[in-house]
């Protein structure tokens, strides 16, 4: 998997590998052209798929050991006894499992309580010409998300107006 920096029209380079949570990998790519940095966070299933290739992200200097992928993947602990009668699948548990596996949306974390604050503000949002022009500077893939956040801020505490100053505040808060 590669990321392309649309602004610089070049591949972003692998930069770092982290383990931000159990069953999760954080793989950071940087753009050598503009310095943009993006981290891809995998869920447990995706992590397992990477693991199942038997490779080390970022390369390796040591020689592989015999059966290293198989031995690392075999479950070490003994199996717990199965219940006599398996309970019927619980839709809520399935949903919780999927949400846990899918990881947390970084957008939701960033926005925090802003959505509720915006709900109490004006429904309409007006963009100034300067602010509209600045929208074009935001990379296309994240532009709709950025626009949504800025409009929430405008509704929450700027009377529904998006102007230069508000865009500055949004940039300072989220970039």
């Amino acid at each position, binding site marked *: 998997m*590669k990321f*392309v920096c*649309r*602004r610089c*029209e*070049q*591949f972003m*380079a*692998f930069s770092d590998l982290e383990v931000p949570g159990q*069953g999760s990998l954080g*793989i950071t790519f940087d753009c050598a052209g503009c310095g943009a940095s993006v981290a891809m966070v995998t869920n*447990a*299933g995706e992590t*397992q*798929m990477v*693991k*199942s*290739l*038997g*490779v*080390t*992200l*970022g*390369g*390796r200097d040591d*020689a*592989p*050991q*015999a*059966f*290293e*992928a*198989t*031995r690392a*993947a*075999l*479950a*070490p602990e*003994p*199996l717990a006894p199965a219940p006599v009668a398996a309970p019927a699948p619980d839709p809520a548990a399935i949903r919780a*499992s999927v949400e846990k*596996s899918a990881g947390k949306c970084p957008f939701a974390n960033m926005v925090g309580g802003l959505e509720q604050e915006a709900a109490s503000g004006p429904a309409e949002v007006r963009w100034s010409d300067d602010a509209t022009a600045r929208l074009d500077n935001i990379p*296309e893939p994240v532009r709709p998300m950025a626009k949504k956040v800025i409009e929430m801020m405008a509704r929450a505490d700027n009377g529904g107006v998006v102007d230069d100053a508000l865009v500055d505040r949004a940039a300072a808060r989220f970039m």
Partner: protein
Amino acid sequence: MNDLKTILGRLEFPDDAGVVAQLSDQAAKVQANLAAVRRTILVMSGKGGVGKSTVTVNLALALARRGLKVGVLDADLNGPCVPYMLGLAGRSWAPEGGRVAPLEGPLGIKVASMAFFLEGDAPVRYDGPTELSSVWLGMMETTTLREFLGDVAWGDLDALLIDMPPGAAADKPPAVLRWLQAPEAVLVTTASRVADQVVARSRRYAEVLGVPVRGTVVNMADLFDGAAAPPADELARVPFCRELAASLDAGEPLSPDHAVSAAFDGVAATLYETPTAATPKGAER
């Protein structure tokens, strides 16, 4: 801003995460490891319970009786039984370094099996999110099969027999075949019409995969006598034999003079005395 197709058209893929290099190294390791293996024969059948492992083991013994150096890869990862049949039950592996020596059965037959990693009656269970296992389990098993081919020190072999798991169009044949040079196949069926129609799919699958089928062993033939027409490429009809079953349970080969041993000697002779275009050069013996 250019569209992605235009951008990608002028970019060269950088392997900065080192993944492609490592996958290439894995392939090179398998290739080097199998360089001295002259023939690889998949023993396969779409049907379970027809006696693939029985045929594999007895064919290996027959080839070894001809003085050939033989290896057996038990590719049935979830139901490994070749070690049991060859008197290696309960044996285990503790691989160290880049390669592990196969365990040695009767007549010097080299054996590798998932059973060597398992304690007691423990099932094969990979550590991971089981609710998502359908996504990654196949990849993990493919990697394990690659390690069996690349990490077991097979050395100089006249024939490596691969005991395939059941399944006519499953993912395992391609997972194994991608690593092999000029593989061949022996099919196993019973004379039952039920088995026959499933094995027919396996035959077609082998054709689709470009693997020449060297013939079909009809196992437990007398139990279903006359039910299904004999296959045109029949290598042997092996009757159900209590002594054979007892020998497999005991992990001791049948006597070479036994009629069943003789039947498998016939299969070995056909495989080694009637070379086809698929037989690798220098592999006849």
